[in-house]
């Protein structure tokens, strides 16, 4: 049988060690599992459960030309473009967030042609990951038709439904090389329990060829097995587990901390005034100068950490 995309996907999966084993490692060790040029999907959405600790590690490791995909991109997209980690981001929306407006850093990179922003509809992103998660080559959908968005992407195919004759759009499966996902807790094997909004993370983990999981805390496998219906991502999909408290800072982690609003305001102000200089200084100060991840958090500041955590806990306070 000649190798088809499906058989190649199966071979990559088969070659992985999918057994129940301890996968704990450092951010730096996990970053070494990713090669320049690979397709990296990010879990979370906008300013929520963004895998910032791993992005930080990738910047530090000097990784280059990753193709990055995510449901919706916030400030991590600025960091990826400005650091050179990625010059190609695939998403449905790229902005620091409604309250801060369009990203001037994104505009500088995209409008100058230095970087690509590949735009699909939100549901199309979701269904592309879902097709990848299901081992299906595509998903049928009923949006994007008739729009300019469809005209600017490659790989989506309009079709006439063979059952009903209705027009449909088939969007192709995405099977990222690596998924970076941050969760509230998982065990050393990678069994992850996600509280609150799960975004596209479950599909992304299943679609990817490798998963690097960062977590607020590592819990025992016994704890996981007391509530197996809470496990959202199974150990067999996971290749690395890194404990990274405040691993989404300055974004939020549901139930643990809200976004670091003062930090986000300051970032918006700095990059709004001068995008290139603002983000370069930010990269130096928060990415290159600290000696480790705790050093990054120190620069963000204990006051902001405690403030974000206090607000984060209120979801449970009713």
């Amino acid at each position, binding site marked *: 049988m000649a190798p088809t995309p499906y058989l190649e996907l199966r071979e990559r999966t088969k070659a992985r060690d999918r057994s129940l084993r301890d996968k704990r490692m450092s951010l730096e060790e996990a970053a070494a599992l990713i090669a320049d040029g690979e397709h990296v999907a990010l879990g979370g959405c906008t300013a929520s459960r963004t895998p910032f600790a791993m992005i930080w590690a990738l910047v530090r490791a000097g990784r280059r030309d990753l193709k990055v995909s995510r449901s919706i991109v916030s400030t991590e997209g600025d960091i990826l473009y400005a650091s050179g980690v990625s010059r190609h981001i695939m998403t449905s929306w790229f902005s620091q967030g409604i309250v801060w407006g369009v990203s001037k850093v994104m505009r500088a990179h995209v409008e100058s042609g230095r970087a690509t922003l590949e735009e699909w509809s939100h549901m199309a992103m979701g269904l592309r990951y879902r097709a990848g998660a299901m081992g299906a080559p595509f998903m049928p959908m*009923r949006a994007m038709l008739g729009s300019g968005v469809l005209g600017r992407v490659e790989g989506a195919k309009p079709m006439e439904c063979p059952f009903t004759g209705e027009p449909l759009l088939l969007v192709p499966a995405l099977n990222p090389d690596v998924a970076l996902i941050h969760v509230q807790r998982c065990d050393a094997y990678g069994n992850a329990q996600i509280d609150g909004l799960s975004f596209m993370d479950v599909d992304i983990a299943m679609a990817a060829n490798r998963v690097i999981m960062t977590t607020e805390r590592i819990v025992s496998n016994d704890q996981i097995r007391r509530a197996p219906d809470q496990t959202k991502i199974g150990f067999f999909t996971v290749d690395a587990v890194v404990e990274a408290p405040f691993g989404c800072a300055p974004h939020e982690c549901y139930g643990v901390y809200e976004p670091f609003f003062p930090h986000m305001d300051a970032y918006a102000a700095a990059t709004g005034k001068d995008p290139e200089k603002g983000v370069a200084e930010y990269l130096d100060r928060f990415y290159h100068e600290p000696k480790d991840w705790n050093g990054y958090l120190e620069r963000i500041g204990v006051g902001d950490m405690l403030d974000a955590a206090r607000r984060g806990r209120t979801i449970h306070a009713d």
Partner: protein
Amino acid sequence: MPTDATRPYTASELLAVSSARALKDGQIVFAGVGVPLLAATLAQRTHAPGLTILFEGGVIGPFVQPGALPPSTNEQRCARRANMLTPITDVLLLLQRGYVDVGFMGGAQIDRYGNLNSSFIGDPDAPKTRLPGTGGGNDIASLAEIIVAMKHEKRRFVEKVDFVTSPGYLSGGDSRARAGLPAGGPYKVVTDLAVMGFDPETKRMRVETLQPGVTPEQVQANTGFDLAIARETPSAEPPSADELAILADLDPERLYTA
């Protein structure tokens, strides 16, 4: 022409109130943060207590806390005391399954057929401005009736959008259905000058109500295409004290109503 300086409410408050009035009790409404959320919550507190709000982050039936409005549809403030949280893809699939009555939309540009642009100003291949993009907008506009709430400016109400991010009635008539979008479409366009609907046949935008104190001429003067405005177009009731009080309670810092 009335402005924020000459009337006892802001343009954003007016948008929220007019949008709220366009909603019906029992509807399921896809809302973004900002004016759409204020509008949907205002409707719940006035004439539509059984209205359900959806956020594209995966939230069904939230109860947003006054004074703690969410920064986007994807943070925990959106999820607060919701009835149900789902993956993003599944809440969007509610649109495709036909569960959603109305979606709220905005955009940098809109044309006479309700097509919306939130992706590019200028040539998409070499844009003057790269905007954030569609988000869930394309999906909402493709699969539900939409209410567009935006400021009424000539540079936004254009003859032809630079790019169709979210499809309205495309080139009018049955072109939307022929493109593969048999359901949904623009329902109302709510601005600080007027509330507009669409002709059932031609699918061209037409004024249904003027905002208080606004003349047909003022609407046309701020619109970049010919707008059908009947001579006898009624004027809307101004926002009531009750409506404004509810908005003030929801957004005391006036993050979205200033």
